[in-house]
């Protein structure tokens, strides 16, 4: 039954289906803002890696961007609450009006019910006044949203420009740091190279990798030692021990002809004897001694 045809006006205009759509849209946008904000929140927060002097401008702009979304989100939550409240009220008022409309329709054609009909219509108007008041509250929530948008999105806000300047400054800071620390970085790199070289040296000395040199070859030994120029203590140890011990006992690099009792001999303490008798075996303890270990 059409309200405006029976009463001559509609005191509670509103399409419940439209309210469902509006509510859904607001929820989706709020969810998107919350999700977007959480992406930035952990990066720009105090104590993050961007919180130092060079990163601070980046953290600041991330926080500002996050706050813009947060402000919009808060305003939308208020709108959503207003819409939900409006929906509940609309449902109740439209139900009242439906009941009034049914009563007025029942009185149609009865000339003695004019007073009752008038009272019912007056009640419908009162419901309409209440509806208008509630509508004004809903309108106010959306007017505040418009006001918030004006505050949030300022024309002079240049987030990308600020980010660009901050990244330029970050690049410059890194370049400065590299320039200042380059000598130390180089020393570290050389030192690491020496450690790596030392690993090769030890491998060769114990006979794991002969690299095509004969262990007794003095020139080869000098070359091996030369590969670790920074390891002074090792060089001194090698120079002290190498010529007397290592060339005589260092075996050829092979694991193919180890005798079955070699490990047992080693464990039982017959090291020197094993080293001498198993001079062709790759797992020779003499090689270990020769390496200075």
């Amino acid at each position: 039954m059409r309200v405006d045809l029976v009463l001559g006006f509609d005191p509670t205009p509103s399409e419940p289906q439209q309210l469902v759509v509006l509510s859904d849209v607001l929820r989706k946008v709020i969810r998107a803002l919350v999700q977007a904000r959480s992406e930035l929140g952990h990066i720009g927060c105090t104590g993050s890696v961007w919180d130092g002097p060079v990163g601070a401008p980046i953290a600041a702009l991330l926080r500002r961007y996050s706050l813009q979304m947060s402000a919009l989100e808060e305003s939308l939550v208020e709108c959503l609450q207003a819409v939900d409240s409006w929906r509940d009220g609309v449902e109740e008022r439209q139900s009242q009006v439906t009941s009034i409309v049914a009563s007025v329709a029942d009185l149609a054609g009865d000339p003695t019910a004019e007073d009752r009909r008038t009272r019912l219509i007056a009640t419908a108007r009162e419901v309409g006044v209440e509806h208008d008041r509630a509508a004004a509250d809903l309108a106010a929530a959306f007017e505040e949203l418009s006001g918030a948008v004006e505050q949030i999105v300022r024309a002079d806000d240049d987030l990308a420009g600020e980010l660009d300047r901050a990244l330029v400054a970050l690049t410059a800071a890194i370049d400065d740091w590299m320039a200042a620390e380059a000598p130390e970085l180089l020393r570290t790199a050389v030192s690491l190279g020496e450690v790596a070289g030392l690993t090769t040296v030890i491998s060769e000395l114990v006979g794991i990798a002969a690299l095509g040199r004969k262990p007794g070859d003095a020139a080869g030994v000098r070359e091996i030692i030369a590969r670790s120029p920074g390891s002074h203590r090792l060089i001194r140890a090698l120079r002290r021990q190498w010529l007397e011990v290592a060339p005589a006992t260092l075996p050829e690099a092979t694991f193919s002809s180890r005798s079955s009792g070699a490990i047992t001999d080693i464990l039982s303490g017959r090291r020197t004897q094993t080293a001498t008798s198993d001079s062709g075996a790759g797992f020779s303890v003499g090689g270990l001694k020769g390496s200075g270990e």
Partner: protein
Amino acid sequence: MPLVGAEVQRLAHAFQQVSLELASGLTALRDSDFTAIGTPPCDSSVGAGMRDLHSALSALQQSSTDCISVMGRHGELAEPAPTDADQSGQGQPSSGEVES
């Protein structure tokens, strides 16, 4: 600078995610009709608010898109410097490798 590189990459990724999320918000607003919500003055305020919301989301998304472009221009911060081997196109054994 692996730490700086990783953090710059995280930042670029965050802006991309923000852009996607805001785009989904804009999609939700697209083609929505906000009439017959209530009284005519109320419909007018709701319609204006939702249009302003669309403008705000568009502006925020534009900011994230611009930031993604800026991050792209500073891509060298997110990538390790090329090594000699990378530049020559072939890897060299490190000094620690045993050439057996």
